[in-house]
């Protein structure tokens, strides 16, 4: 019995040790592309899903020996899914990641694969160095920026034409439209407070424009004072009071838990505008008849001051630190980022590509057009601010949403909500920076 036991333990040890050493050698790049199956995950709307699946099909024709398994879905719940996969060591080989995930999942730069080691298959020379710096943590290249994007205003042209209204250029014009549309029970725009947090985003733009102070610095310092936060909440409340946006009460009653682009009120034109990332506006565009959604001017004050608008890497690609196939994953990532034919297939479903090769390919094929391009041009003409990755952390969003909800439901006045939010944000930022 003892003999059998010793044999069994020895065998298990050999298997485990050999598996470990095998794993380690497989995790290092060897420059070769071997037949394998790799997983690629992303979130997005239907337009992005369709284009990405087509791109995978194109890859399969060129590299049938490297099979790509797609994993995709909507944004809601996606962070939680990837978080579980990363914690459990079952993350896909290649992931589309959000900007703030670099802080959450790789605070020391070791949470994702160091992409600088994969230069044999991944061409990074076609990216500007400041664009590449977005994906660096502690000087380790964790991710590559797919595109840089900002939120812009998009309007249902049919409704605006019907009501003989022009797209607003200033905040005051926006407020006037709210009053003008009230009689028709139409809202010039609407903002959600849920996962996207667009309501707080617009309020931050407004305050940044008014005060010149930046909400959060790149290293996570709160730039707003308590007064600034109050100003932002006052602005939000005024949007509700002047019928520019729906109150939370009305929005949840009418839409339930549906996202704004799925809302019957957006589809039937009761909501005549949205604030959305240029890289993600496709889902709103698809919900309306073709050509109806149009990009509008970025709002400014009455003196033409249009600062305060923000940009960030809309999405980035990263490779799992546990991948067994770094070379193959890098090759596929390179295909997604830089291949000319792939760029044509993907179009602008993730925004205007940051890769010069992909951008040029889109330009030559005449695909560099539409809302994404229009929004990009509008932002290019502004003095934009790069969003701090700390701004999009889930806990930070919960602070914004709690404050806005309290103000909207009148459970707290803007001073009380601002005070609470100021304290919470400072405490949290101090804790995570430690």
């Amino acid at each position, binding site marked *: 019995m003892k003999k059998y036991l010793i044999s069994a333990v020895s065998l298990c040890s050999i298997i485990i040790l050999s598996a470990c050493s095998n794993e380690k050698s497989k995790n290092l790049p060897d420059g070769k592309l071997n037949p394998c199956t790799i997983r690629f995950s992303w979130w997005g709307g239907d337009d992005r899903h369709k284009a990405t699946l087509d791109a995978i099909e194109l890859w399969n024709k060129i590299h049938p020996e490297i099979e790509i398994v797609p994993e995709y879905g909507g944004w809601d719940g996606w*962070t*939680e899914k990837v*978080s*579980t996969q*990363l*914690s459990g060591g079952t993350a896909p080989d290649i992931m589309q990641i959000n900007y703030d995930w670099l802080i*959450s*999942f*790789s*605070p*020391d730069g070791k*949470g994702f694969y160091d992409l600088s080691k994969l230069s044999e298959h991944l061409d990074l020379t076609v990216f500007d160095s400041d664009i590449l710096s977005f994906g660096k943590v502690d000087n380790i290249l964790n991710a590559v920026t797919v595109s840089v994007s900002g939120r812009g205003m998009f309007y249902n042209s049919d409704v605006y034409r019907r009501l003989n209204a022009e797209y607003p250029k200033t905040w005051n014009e926006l407020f006037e439209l709210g009053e003008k549309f009230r009689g028709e029970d139409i809202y010039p725009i609407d903002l959600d407070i*849920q996962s996207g947090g667009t309501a707080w985003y617009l309020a931050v733009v407004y305050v940044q424009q008014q005060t010149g102070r930046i909400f959060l610095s790149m290293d996570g310092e709160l730039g707003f004072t308590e007064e600034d936060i109050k100003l932002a909440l006052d602005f939000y409340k005024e949007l509700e009071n002047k019928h520019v946006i729906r109150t*939370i*009460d*009305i*929005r*949840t*009653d*009418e*839409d*339930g*838990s*549906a996202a704004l682009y799925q809302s*019957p009120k957006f589809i039937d034109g009761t909501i005549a505008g949205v604030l959305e990332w240029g890289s993600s506006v496709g889902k709103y565009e698809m919900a309306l008849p073709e050509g109806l959604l149009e990009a509008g001017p970025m709002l400014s004050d009455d003196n033409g001051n249009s600062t305060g608008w923000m940009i960030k890497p809309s999405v980035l690609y990263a490779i799992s630190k546990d991948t067994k196939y770094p070379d193959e994953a890098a090759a596929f990532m390179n295909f997604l980022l830089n291949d000319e034919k792939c760029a044509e297939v993907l179009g602008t479903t993730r925004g205007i590509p940051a890769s010069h090769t992909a951008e040029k390919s889109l330009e030559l094929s005449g695909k560099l057009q539409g809302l994404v391009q229009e929004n990009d041009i509008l932002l290019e003409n502004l003095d934009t601010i790069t969003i701090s990755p700390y701004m999009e952390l*889930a*806990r930070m969003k*919960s602070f914004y949403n709690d404050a806005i*909800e*309290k103000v909207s*439901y009148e*459970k707290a006045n803007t001073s009380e909500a601002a005070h609470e939010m100021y304290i919470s944000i400072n405490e949290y930022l101090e804790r995570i920076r430690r």
Partner: protein
Amino acid sequence: MKKIYHNPTGVKKYTGLIFISPFIVGFLLFTLYPFVSSFLLGMTDYNGISPPEFTGFSNYISMFEDEKFRNSLFVTFRYSVILVPLKLVISLIMALILNLEIRGMGLYRTIFYIPSILGSNLAVVIMWQFLFTGDGLVNQFLEFIGIGAVNWYGNENGSLSIIVFLRLWEFGSAMIIFLNALREIPPEYYDAAKVDGCGKMCAFFSITLPMLKDVIFLNLILQLISAMQEFNAPYMITGGGPMKSTYTIGMLIYDEMFKYHNSGYANAVSWVLFVITTVFVLLLFRFTGSHREGNQ
């Protein structure tokens, strides 16, 4: 003559253990191991990515200062207190109806059980939106009968109500347990009661209810545990809102764990939930003990 059982060929000392080993391995890996590691993680600062750091009882201490924790605990209690008695009453009434000797009753029983299988999946969420949003079917009906529309999703009480309605609609499991117990009651008891001049209501309170005491208790415990752990329905239907009015403790654990990467705290909260639920169950055992023993 005493019968002698021969040991079949190949059966040895450990054969039984080998047969039950799938359960033992499953229990050790998927129940005991998570149970113990959850307690240990509850005493750490752990984000799910970096190695955990031992922090003692600090997670438990910070829970008392956490307004969200207090609120979610209150929401969970409120929800359980409303849902559990209502569900017991409705499932018992339905079981009584489905216990009648009517043709095709098997089909009816199956139909009434279907909602319990569905759970709170995406299709149900969409259906609930059709029913309870501003222009939904329920409000159309309420307006038709002159009561007027209710803001179900946007109102704190309304949103809790629609979660309760969903779970009430899923009365099937509790109903099946009642139904089974009802069919166990000997019909002679009712015949004797009838002879003694006892009517239907009298028979229900004098025979049916006393005979169902144990099953009512069983259902009470099962429903209470399930209500205390509620997560799916508020997560899918209301997202915990508005104003955190449907933000149950299950949602808090989920958010802390997966959204905020505060795994240590999430594990500590789940242990507090476990202890509270256990205390409730023990109290119920204690306070209902004499009644249940009386039945035996």
